[in-house]
């Protein structure tokens, strides 16, 4: 339990660093560390498949995409943020911590519990039989993403020809 809370605190700290650090590369790396910690939390929650996806895809692939984009947009660091943003963040964070704590405490035992019970079968059976429609939707989303990226970059090539 204590380890889990330390991991959750680490996840929040690195997520906050990801948005507060001015250097975009450091921000992307903080996000990767946060994903890694989330993967470890998933693993400790007995969700190894979600953990593997989180670590390999989010901490790996998405970080690479972010760093590639940062490298291609060299002047990204030059965008000036409002001065108050970083100064006001701890104040708003503490306020939200108090509100969040109070809300969760008041909701404790009051939310009607979701029906719970041990599941039958294996992960493969649940994924391929119960969630078949989700898989079809996933294929559609991936195709839409690929087509969108192709369309975005093809347009630039046409511009160059002109």
């Amino acid at each position: 339990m204590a380890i889990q809370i330390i991991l959750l605190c680490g996840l929040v700290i690195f997520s906050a660093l990801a948005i507060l650090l001015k250097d975009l590369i450091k921000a992307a790396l903080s996000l990767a560390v946060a994903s890694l910690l989330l993967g470890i939390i998933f693993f400790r929650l007995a969700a190894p498949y979600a953990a593997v996806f989180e670590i390999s895809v989010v901490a790996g692939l998405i970080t690479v995409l972010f760093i590639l984009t940062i490298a291609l947009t060299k002047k990204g660091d030059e965008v000036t943020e409002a001065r108050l943003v970083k100064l006001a963040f701890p104040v708003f964070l503490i306020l939200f911590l108090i509100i969040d704590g109070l809300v969760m405490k008041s909701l404790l035992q009051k939310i009607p519990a979701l029906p719970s019970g041990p599941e039958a079968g294996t992960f493969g059976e649940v994924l391929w039989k119960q969630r078949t429609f989700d898989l079809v939707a996933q294929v559609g989303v991936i195709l839409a993403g690929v087509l969108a990226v192709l369309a975005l970059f093809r347009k630039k090539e046409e511009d160059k020809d002109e």
Partner: protein
Amino acid sequence: MSNLWFLYLFFAALLVFIGLYCLLTMRNLIKLFIAVEVISKGVSLAIVATGAVKNNILLAQSLAITYIVVEVALVATALALIINIYKKNKSLDVRLLSKLKG
């Protein structure tokens, strides 16, 4: 067991708050997208933690995996858009997008 669920929901809400704060206050497009990623981490945590606490971890895992795949497609498309916006405006300042002309 229920207390554990609220602990995870507490941290998930905190992550969503951090992301929303960044989305509302920052101007760098890449930072805004990092904020979207932070929000999505909060949502993933809520899904998997709820599944683990309610003994529905297999279903929660399959939903989390679907969510991660959708997230990757979103990231790829959005980063391609950001690169195109940068090539057009030579800046990642989101305020410049308000000057777009039809």
